[in-house]
Structure formats: structure tokens, C-alpha cells
């Protein structure tokens, strides 16, 4: 079944970004994503929420969930369900299962996005090089998410911890974003490449 066949990452072949104390940037392959629209408030939705351990469905900009399954509010009655690699899906959360009927639209989006984890003390400084939203921890709390321009590309930016972010970028843009990241992370020694050392 297709679920078992690994998804080919668009970042195969591009130079990887290593890590440093200040910053690590790495792709997070293998998560299962569902694009959800139009919550049908009813028993199915209830089932889905309880599986996720949520009392209520997250508002735009908020997220919630448990056991490696998180629901992100990314638009007006639009959500993204992010399931960590390897999390055994409760049947309620399969497109065929309860979630399929809890929402007007439940589409597999696992192939649509490339997921990039950015963590470390310099993480928000890095994002501030290409993203206009206010990342101050008072304003953008862990668990918060936002769809915004990063280096001019549309991204879902999800703060998973004080110093850790996840970026969901449209697959066809992934390489362009990665190359930008390569460029702007150089100063943190986030990758060994010394080619353009200067002075």
C-alpha cells in the first residue's frame, strides 16, 4: 500500500545543513499530513478531538494534540493535521476514518509540504532575516503557528518550543527555501562549508 512506500524528498541531493550549538536546520521527513476544512461539529469531530486529547478545535494560529499528532489552525476553518513519522494512526485519524466525515474536506497533504526543523538559540534570529512576524516569545508562544512569507515564500511556521520551530514549505519551493537557508545560516556555522570565508 502506498503508505508503506517512502515519499521522495525534494531535498534529496541538495547539500545538507549540519548543526551547531547555536542552530540546527534539518529536514523532518516521513510525517503524515492531512489538510482539513469545514469542521462538521458533531460526534465524529468529538471522536477526533478526544483522540487528539483536545477539548476544543484549535483557533487560527494555535495548535494542539498528543502522541505525535497535532492539529494546526492555519486558516478560517482550515486545519493541518501533522502526524509524526512512525506514529501508528488511530483509525479515527485516517482519511477514511472518523476524520473523513468530521470535516467537509479531508485531503492527504503528506506530499504537498516539506517539513524543516529549525532549533537553537539563534532560531528566531534566523527566521527574522526573512519573516516579518513578531517572534518575541511574549507574542508568539510555543504551540503557536502562522502562515507567512519566509524569504518571500509561503510557509507555515510552527513554534514547537521556546527555541524550536518547524517550517512547512510547499514541496515545489523546498529547494529554493533550503538554498536561502544555507546562505543565511552560514554565520552560525550551521554548516561546514567555508567556501565564501572572507577577511
Amino acid at each position: 500500500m502506498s503508505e508503506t512506500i517512502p515519499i521522495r524528498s525534494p531535498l534529496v541531493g541538495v547539500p545538507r545543513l549540519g548543526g551547531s550549538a547555536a542552530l540546527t536546520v534539518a529536514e523532518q521527513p516521513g510525517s503524515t499530513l492531512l489538510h482539513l476544512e469545514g469542521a462538521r461539529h458533531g460526534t465524529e469531530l468529538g471522536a477526533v478531538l478526544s483522540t487528539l486529547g483536545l477539548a476544543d478545535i484549535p483557533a487560527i494560529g494555535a495548535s494542539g494534540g498528543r502522541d505525535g499528532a497535532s492539529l494546526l489552525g492555519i486558516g478560517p476553518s482550515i486545519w493541518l493535521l501533522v502526524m509524526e513519522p512512525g506514529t501508528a494512526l488511530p483509525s479515527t485519524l485516517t482519511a477514511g476514518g472518523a476524520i473523513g466525515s468530521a470535516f467537509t474536506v479531508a485531503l492527504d497533504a503528506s506530499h504537498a509540504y516539506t517539513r524543516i526543523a529549525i532549533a537553537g538559540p539563534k532560531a528566531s534570529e534566523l527566521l527574522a532575516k526573512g519573516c516579518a512576524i513578531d517572534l518575541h516569545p511574549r507574542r508568539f508562544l510555543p504551540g503557536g503557528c502562522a502562515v507567512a512569507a519566509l524569504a518571500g515564500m509561503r510557509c507555515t511556521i510552527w513554534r514547537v518550543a521556546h527555541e524550536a520551530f518547524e517550517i512547512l514549505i510547499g514541496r515545489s519551493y523546498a529547494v529554493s527555501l533550503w538554498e536561502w537557508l544555507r546562505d543565511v545560516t552560514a554565520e552560525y556555522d550551521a554548516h561546514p562549508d567555508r567556501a565564501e570565508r572572507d577577511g
Partner: protein
Amino acid sequence: MLIPCPHCGERPHSEFIYGGDATLYRPADPTRVSDMEWYDYVYLRTNPRGPHNEFWHHTLGCDQWIEVTRDTLTHRILAAAAIGSSAAGDTP
């Protein structure tokens, strides 16, 4: 400029694409309106020098059309709302 997206909050206008005059009213049945009325809908604009009801599409954000009232002289934003929940004014 910063546009307060009713869904995403304040964002630079470079995240948006402009959608023009939001006070236009497309006739329910275009066949029933005069050439003049149709011409007015497709081509004529009030183009005010002051408060202007307009659409913006949050292309690099929530991907929604929103309705904004903005002063075209000062660029002050007077109101912003999701489509339909028209706080921004008199679209039919």
C-alpha cells in the same frame, strides 16, 4: 503598509495582492441590466481620494480574500474584515 488580516493579524502588505474596489456590485442577472450598467460594473471606478473599500488577497498568508477600508491619501486602515462578515462596509 501593514494590513490587519482578520485571520492572521497585522502583516506587511507585500504578503497580499490587491483586489480592487470592494463596492462593485455584479448584477445578479447581467442579461437584465443595460449596457450602461454593465459598462459601469466592469470599467468605471469611484477611485476616491480618501476612505476606500477594497479587497486584498492574503496570498502569502491564509490565502483568503479580505475586505479592507483604507484611506488612499493617508494609507490609514480604518477597518478590515473577513469576506461576508462585512465590518468593512457596504458590499451587498
